């Protein structure tokens, strides 16, 4: 089995920041298979909410047999998760998706907003020269943990930490260099990074988001447009849950 679906117990949960939660679940079989950039589907205990909530893997701990996720309360489902305490349990499925392809080349690891968490496990595991660039609206989270893994620079919209502006402003301001960009964050950020990479001949691996139902490539709900025909769908659509969520930016047609 490469995908596990089971009930998992919450080991701990804290609120990092108003509305942003840090949850670790016991999921040994999932942890053993998981890679940076993959995600889990979390199911609500309230069964009137049928569809899974896809949440990225922020940390993998094989000793503890656990997976850590950091998420923002965005609606009823994540609100339900945020009320869970150690010992509570929920259905989970994963690990899902392809994850980042980790080469040995100099890396720029970029996270924006709620796209910051999935970059942490990548920063941990990537065996290459790497610089981390994080963008926040205002207050920062997970920053100290990134600093333990690599040199980390920050941009905030209000200038409260680091550079005032976007992650691209931080990349320019600090002259961050590398050959491969790894990124997760809001669509405008990913689009801008894709252009930046294209202009400089860099590779860019970006992690995309879309609403999901099956999470395993069956329903075709979660597609993104691609420049080439997708080998599975035979049209210019790739499934974010299965062919992604990480794509080579060159392959994606941005909305």
């Amino acid at each position, binding site marked *: *089995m490469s*995908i596990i679906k089971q009930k998992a117990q919450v080991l701990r949960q804290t609120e990092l920041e108003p509305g942003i939660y840090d949850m670790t679940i016991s999921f040994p079989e999932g942890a053993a298979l998981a890679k940076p950039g993959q995600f889990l589907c979390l199911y609500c205990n309230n069964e009137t909410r*049928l*569809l899974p909530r896809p949440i990225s893997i922020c940390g993998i701990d094989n000793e503890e047999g656990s997976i850590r996720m950091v998420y923002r309360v965005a609606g009823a489902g994540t609100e339900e998760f945020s009320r869970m305490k150690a010992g509570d349990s929920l259905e989970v499925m994963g690990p899902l998706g392809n994850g980042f392809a980790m080469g040995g080349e100099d890396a720029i690891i970029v996270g924006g907003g709620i796209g910051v968490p999935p970059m942490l496990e990548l920063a941990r595991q990537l065996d290459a020269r790497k610089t981390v660039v994080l963008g926040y609206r205002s207050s920062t989270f997970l920053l100290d943990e990134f600093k333990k893994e690599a040199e980390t620079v920050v941009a905030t919209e209000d200038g409260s930490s680091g550079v005032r502006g976007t992650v691209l402003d931080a990349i320019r301001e600090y002259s961050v260099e590398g050959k491969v960009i790894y990124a997760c964050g809001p669509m405008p950020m990913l689009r801008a990074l894709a252009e930046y990479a294209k202009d400089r001949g860099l590779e860019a691996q970006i992690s995309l988001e879309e*609403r999901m139902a099956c999470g395993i490539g069956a329903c075709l709900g979660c597609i993104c447009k691609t420049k080439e025909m997708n080998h599975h769908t*035979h049209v210019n659509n790739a499934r974010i849950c299965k062919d992604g969520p990480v794509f080579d930016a060159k392959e994606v047609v941005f909305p």
Partner: protein
Amino acid sequence: MKLEVTIAGKTFKNPVTTASGTFGSGAEFEEFVDLSALGAVTTKGVANVPWEGNPTPRLAETYGGMLNAIGLQNPGIDVFCKRDIPHLVEKNASIIVNVCGRTIPDYLEVVERLSDEPVDLLEINVSCPNVKAGGIAFGQNPQALLEITREVKKVAKQPVVMKLSPNVTDITEMAKAAEAGGADALSLINTITGMKIDIYRRDFVLANKTGGMSGPAIKPVAVRMIYQVRKACPLPIIGMGGVMTGQDAVELMMAGASMVSVGTANFHNPRASIEVLEGIKAFMADQKIEDIREIIGCVE
């Protein structure tokens, strides 16, 4: 315990299949379900050529259900015959192929291509609410339904199941039209047209504005329509709409379904189809039912 059911002369080892579009081509669910243990696998709607489908967002959750506006994205019949059918055959699955199209010739091309394939039933989707002229006109007009059924029957080598839309005033009129066109069986219900608005963005959640509603919230509509159709028309019925458990499946069968499809439940639990089958068996054991056929349409 006897679980076999027969539809249009084809016998299936048990009454549980998968609802088209919720189970891919079956392969996607293999890690969770032994495909040969199901009565049949019903595959995603396939057209004569690949379809791109609708823009995203294509999905929205609703209370006890969901909306989808996939727009019948599919790889086209060539890939389907080359890749998906052989795979299902290798897995020893019985196969029901859902067919979609924009025009009658589109449908006929697919049906003809399937004539030499090891397919048990053809399920003709004339009821997708998410595609402009994607068959819905056929599914909402009795005369058009009769006509397409008759044309499909002329070329089909396998029994023809017409999949009816619930988005009509009188479902029995549609059932009778399909019967008059020569259909061998009916399947119902497809999704119910719905809409969801994001009140904070003051915009539709789905790019397509409307979508097809499915899931447990629609089950009472399915039960009612299956019952009405069974009373109005002698054709066997594949029932679907909101089946989550074995009890739900039994309910649709008591209303009149000979076979039951599990759809949206697969998204909540990828093992749902097999668990529905287990649930039916448990119900039969508990209620001392020897043969599943006893309960088909047992409610007058």
